[in-house]
């Protein structure tokens, strides 16, 4: 596993999201109203909607295509829908605000 810096806290506004491409992977980074950062795969399990474009409420995001509700903490789709998206653990450098995640090396083909 490799740790990479993918963004800075200043890149994202509260209750909004930015997208990062790492190789073939597309990750949506969210900043919650608490200032915490969450990272999930940017694809809804329903019809691959861009979750980065959804409305963020607490630690949930609503998919912009068909309003599926997804928990950003564990990636679980909330009922009555079912499914799960991959979540990624993020680290925030308290000094400079850099946001980093751990990814498998094979993904790091730049």
């Amino acid at each position: 596993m490799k740790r990479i810096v993918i963004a800075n806290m200043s890149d994202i506004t509260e209750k909004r999201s930015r997208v990062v491409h790492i190789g073939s992977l597309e990750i949506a980074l969210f900043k919650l109203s608490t200032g915490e950062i969450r990272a999930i795969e940017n694809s809804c399990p329903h019809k691959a909607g861009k979750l980065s474009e959804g409305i963020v409420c607490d630690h949930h995001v609503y998919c912009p295509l068909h309003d599926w509700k997804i928990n950003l903490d564990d990636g679980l789709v909330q009922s009555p829908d079912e499914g799960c998206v991959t979540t990624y653990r993020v680290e925030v450098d308290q000094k400079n605000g850099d946001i980093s995640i751990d990814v498998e090396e094979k993904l790091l083909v730049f």
Partner: protein
Amino acid sequence: MAKKKLVLVGNGMAGVRCIEDILKLAPDKYEITIFGSELHPNYNRISLSSVLAGDADMKDIILNDWDWYNENHITLYSGQTVDKIDPVKKWVRSSSGLVVSYDELILATGSLPFMLPLPGANKEGVIAFRDIKDCQTMVETSKKYKKAIVIGGGLLGIEAARGLLNLNMDVSVVHIFSHLMERQLDPTAAHMLQQELENQGMKFLLEKNTKAILGKKRVTSLEFTDGSTVEADLVVMAVGIKPNVALAKDCGIEVNRGIVVNDYLETSDPHVYAVGECAEHRGTVYGLVAPLYEQGNVLAKRLAGVETEGYQGSVLATKLKVSGVNVFSAGQFMDAPGTKVVRVQDDFDGIYKKIVMKNGKIIGSVLFGDTTEGSELFSMIRKQEDVSGREREILLPAGTGTAKSGVDRVAAMPMDEIICGCNGVTKETIIQAIKEKGCTSVQDVKACTKASGSCGGCKPLVVDLLTYVLGAEGVQTEKEGICGCTSLSHSEVVDAIRRMELTTTKEVMNVLEWSQSEGCSKCRPALNYYLGMVWPKEHVEERESRFVNERNHANIQKDGTYSVVPRIYGGVTTPGDLKKIADVAVKYNVPMVKFTGGQRIDLFGVKKEDLPKVWEELDMPSGYAYGKALRTVKTCVGSTWCRFGTQDSMKMGIELEKKLERLNTPAKIKLAVSGCPRNCSEATVKDLGVVAIDGGWEIYVGGNGGTDVRTADLLVKVKTEEEVMEWTQSYFQYYRETANYNERTSKWVERIGLETIQKELEQKENRMALVERIENVLSLMEDPWKEIIENNELRKTFEPLSYLNLVGTAE
């Protein structure tokens, strides 16, 4: 904390519903034990007549199957009747000697059929109609015998008789009164019912009082007080029920006709409660399911420690369903001094409808043959709604004629028919949700299945399905809040924003106690709109509360790309603009260019990061094809070219579009201007349509050509273009201020009434005040594409993050 022991005596509808409510409110509070005399899980007793009538199987009417008890860790002793309670030591004992102790005890012992104490009532072949066993007896009897007599011409008796008819028996109903169902029907409706049932083969012996049941071991005939007799192989007594209070009475709990309870369903013993048909509340014993469920709910709250106002008693409504006949009855349905009646009678179609009014309110109703309005009427009766002035409309809605009722329509649909086209939810799925998951309202069904969760167009069908499964009295009509986060309605929220001067969504949700602190995808955009509408200057636009399309000012497509529609005023363009659009499409490899229905051009498949560049190069204003805002003003060519044209419709359309562009509205608005009454721009299916006539203009409003097809209503006829502008502006500002978020004008006009709108806009000074407010809003709006192009911070958010730095190897 150790769980408290809760014991329920009676495994029927009222008691088990109460347990379900407790499990929802306080799932871990109690260790639950249930005793039931019958060897079945909880079933829908009301539907027994359907089983008998052959319309349903036993398994169809099970409400809670065995698994439900297991999954909820409930100990069920079925086939065990509790015969003793010790309220001091707090235990109950069953007939087989099983003793179970309790902390809290619920009695839901239901009722017993009232058996007339006639000579011979104990003979073989004399039964009641109360449980599955009785149904089985009837089925068995029908195989060997022919003649059945039902004593009692009430609801239960008729349902039993109909079932016996289905079993090919020769059935006569004996009734002491001159007309059937005298507790629910007036003589006219009762007579129609009798006629219908006679057509189905049922016979009636009215005003007959049974004196004795004759026969040796088994019944052979009935003798009446007038000396006449009738042959009988089977006698079903359906004259009424009496609360089953013996158990409570034996252990010293206060009993009157039923077990006496207070508003919290508490009996005279502090740890013993009673719900359902066995309970007597404020002198009334209820026998219908809705009040019993209301009681169960109050008791559940009490036991779960949730605050409740207590049970306040219920208004009754009955729906009888014997094959082919619908009957509804509620409240005080008989004419009486001081009441006024609206009556509709149609002997050809066998329809009779009556509402009884007192002081402008509906106090009772009888419907026969068509019970479409039943639920609505019942809710009006309960709410004591003042309906003065529209008494007739309730029973005679425009244009319904003799259409089949909605409930009949959904009943006739095949199970796999799609009810909710947006989410692909079938009739079967919804019925399952109602039967198995206990959904009793549109909201419930939406939460369980998503049906009606998107466009909402199928809501009436969902209501019909709920009514079909649960009966009118079983359907909960909830106040439609903005969303699940609050029970407040749209107008209540807007009032609060004005009154308390709330300025941010966060503040609104805090002060109005939203159940989810940051709301949901439904309420956040709504609040953002309302705040902007009430405080156009002060409100700071919350981009994070906007739906993606309104945030990115383009229409998101299913693959995550966007479509771009530049503004083309009145659908009139130039070769220069067309060239520009073509150049941009070529440069950015736009995979599809399509004409929209609103006379503009749509570029599909644009990547998000290309949007600002595309806009910049188009150098045209946003067409707002993505927003709850002014979309297009469609025009015909009018007097400029057309030989029929009476006015310059293109000019009028372009002026309207220039005036109203960028206006945020509760839902999208589409306009059209036609140059003559031939109406080629289809102005009468637009939110506002202007039709030129010789020497003036007609303004039509509330039209829709989409999900809710509706012909527009004529708002006003005016003479000049200035007047068209003034009326249009004031009309839309009034819409902005009074419509619910997401409510199209077609729905809004229906809801508040054309007359209300006309009255509001009638006075010149009212119109001018509205115009002033809309001008104020419009003066604050900027072109969003330009804003994003020129604002680096905003523009940046359209691009993905690109820098990646390797910082080391993680463990």
